[in-house]
């Protein structure tokens, strides 16, 4: 199972902090996972294409080409603003 996490503005816009999901058929990369999630509706489409969106796999920021095997922790979040 994939563990999906959403933080900050994304968490609010999607009304979802965490969910688990089996790797959908035909999805092999982080970018394809994003496209798949965007089909859930306009708020998903908008949130997952927001400016400066980050995606982390296993708590490490990666690019959209990164492959998924189906048992990772995948987090989506906006630009960070700590400090």
């Amino acid at each position, binding site marked *: 199972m994939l563990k999906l*996490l959403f*933080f*900050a*503005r994304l968490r609010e816009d999607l009304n979802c902090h965490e969910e688990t999901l089996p790797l959908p058929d035909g999805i092999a990369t982080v970018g394809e996972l994003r496209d798949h999630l965007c089909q859930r509706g306009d708020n998903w489409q908008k949130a997952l294409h927001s400016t*400066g969106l*980050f995606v*982390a796999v296993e*708590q*490490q*920021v990666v690019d959209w080409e990164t492959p998924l095997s189906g048992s990772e922790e995948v*987090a989506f*979040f*906006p*630009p*960070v*603003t*700590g*400090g």
Partner: protein
Amino acid sequence: MILVQEQDFDLQHEYETLRQDGPGIGAIVTFVGLMRDFNDGDNVKSLFLEHYAGMTEKVLANIVNQAKERWQLQAVRIIHRVGELHPSDQIVFVGVSSAHRGDAFAACEFIMDFLKTRAPFWKREQTDQGSRWVDARSSDTDAAQRWNKN
């Protein structure tokens, strides 16, 4: 030493711990980030700091390792608070000890610049106009990118 915590911290305690490392230390630089009562022209009454537990600590440890590869450092201590904060509250501490002041200054600023742009913290602020997520600043991105030039 890297801590992400709700409770406040004590500069003197952090400083004394850094200083105890011994008589080879010539310089200790500390940074404390404090909550301001204004942002983007509005009064800010409170701040809520969210973070990605687990990843935060990994990112900070990675930044410290990069700093230690780049400069001659004795010790580094980082504390970042999360949860609800109010104006004048301490938010973040970075302390660096070294034999040489140049290394201590550079490493402390480097760590803050990368913490600001890489560590998964997010601020939501409560203003007179309501609640809003703080936007990332391009000046922070620029500050971090400076370090690539050397």
